[in-house]
């Protein structure tokens, strides 16, 4: 428990809570980089994902891009950008943006693509234009998966923003990197705890937002794509009738 006492001691020191290198200032910097990258990511990825999902053309490109970019090492990309462009907000936000786009793109695409075809048909039958179908029917129905993508993107960006301190940026990563360079273990550990807490708090807030925004009628929607593993409690499962099991589309129809 010695380590815990040291972390608490470091966090409890009022000196670490004030000024431009204090914890509140570092948290704000961290959120600034992350927020900017996620916002730009949403502006880039959601329209493209929604359009591809709506038209059904180019889906393989989205899936390939999302998988390929997952293999891209974040640290290498960030360092390369800094060497090419120089130190500034631009390389950090671009490096984080590249991380935010794939989950957002995949989530939006999968969300729009997985909207029940009969719902889209009904909207078209009621005389809605394609634009209205996308904005009023497909996007609201895709929210569970879209927001899942947003949460994944935000978490990854917050985690990687800590790495940005390695190339002389601010944010909570500073405590990790500065602590490492002078072997100040309590500072490093306290910084690590702060990043983890920030990630968990943001994740909890986004989970709350998701519960508030997603229509109650869609609550069981996620179970259709991801098997819940809880057969008794799964409203989309129609029972053990062989006809249902051999036809996943049938089992996916919402009651």
């Amino acid at each position: 428990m010695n380590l815990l006492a040291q972390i608490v001691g470091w966090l409890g020191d009022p000196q670490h809570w004030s000024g431009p290198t204090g914890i509140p200032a570092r948290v704000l910097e961290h959120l600034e980089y992350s927020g900017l990258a996620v916002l730009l990511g949403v502006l880039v990825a959601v329209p493209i994902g929604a359009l591809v999902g709506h038209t059904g053309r180019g889906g393989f490109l989205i899936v390939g891009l999302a998988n390929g970019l997952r293999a891209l090492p974040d640290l290498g990309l960030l360092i390369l950008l800094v060497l090419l462009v120089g130190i500034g907000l631009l390389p950090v936000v671009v490096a984080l943006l590249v991380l935010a786009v794939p989950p957002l793109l995949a989530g939006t695409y999968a969300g729009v693509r997985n909207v029940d075809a009969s719902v889209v048909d009904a909207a078209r039958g009621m005389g809605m234009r394609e634009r209205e179908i996308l904005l009023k029917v497909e996007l609201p129905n895709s929210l569970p998966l879209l927001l899942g993508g947003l949460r994944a993107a935000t978490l990854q960006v917050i985690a990687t923003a800590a790495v940005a301190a390695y190339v002389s940026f601010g944010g909570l990563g500073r405590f990790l990197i500065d602590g490492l360079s002078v072997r100040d273990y309590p500072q490093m550990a306290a910084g690590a705890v702060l990043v983890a807490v920030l990630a968990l708090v943001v994740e909890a807030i986004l989970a709350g937002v998701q519960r508030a925004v997603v229509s109650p009628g869609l609550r069981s929607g996620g179970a259709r794509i991801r098997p819940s593993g809880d057969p008794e409690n799964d409203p989309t499962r129609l029972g053990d009738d062989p006809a249902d099991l051999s036809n996943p589309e049938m089992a996916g129809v919402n009651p």
Partner: protein
Amino acid sequence: MIWSWIPRNGDLILGLLGQHLVLALVPVVVGLVLAVPLGWLANRSRAARSVLIPSAGVLYTIPSLVLFIVLPGILGTQILDPVNVVVALIVYTVALLVRSVADALAAVPAMVVAAATAMGFKPARRFLAVEFPLSVPVLVAGLRVATVSNISLVSIGAVIGIGGLGQLFTDGYQRNFPTEIVTGIGLSMLLALLADAALLGLGRAITPWSRAASPRGTA
């Protein structure tokens, strides 16, 4: 770009590539071995599921750099010990795969399990001979995600001094030498794509029935 740097430093690059591969793949194997019983438990008992799945989610949200730094304090290892990176990646692999294993087992048709029981399979043998093989396609999907993200995460370890190909990033940064960084990024992505393709092929090879059953090859 000074491409002649690559052949001149072939030994260094191959050494780091080997280290990268070990640091990324050992956790996948250990993580799989740990995740199968946990996932089995999560699929069987609702109480275990309500503990295991959310805690796996929380573990997965902890940034990798944070784990690399905090683990020495918890394990009592030196900060430059590669064990820290391996243990951190095992944590991520288990967190990811517990859910995959539980989902994979839940996707095994109840009819098949009932048929196996009716044919006299005892629970342990039923799991090994029926449920586990049938869960392979969903499980392999989870393994592919874990492997690719591990290969990408190893390089973050370079910030604390152990990172396989990631050391090309930190070294290239200190020397202001983009060729070295591009080499590291290229090899790291190549490694991830090859490992992904190998797992995909392995998954197909050990589940010949899934191709016979559905022409789309999905399961």
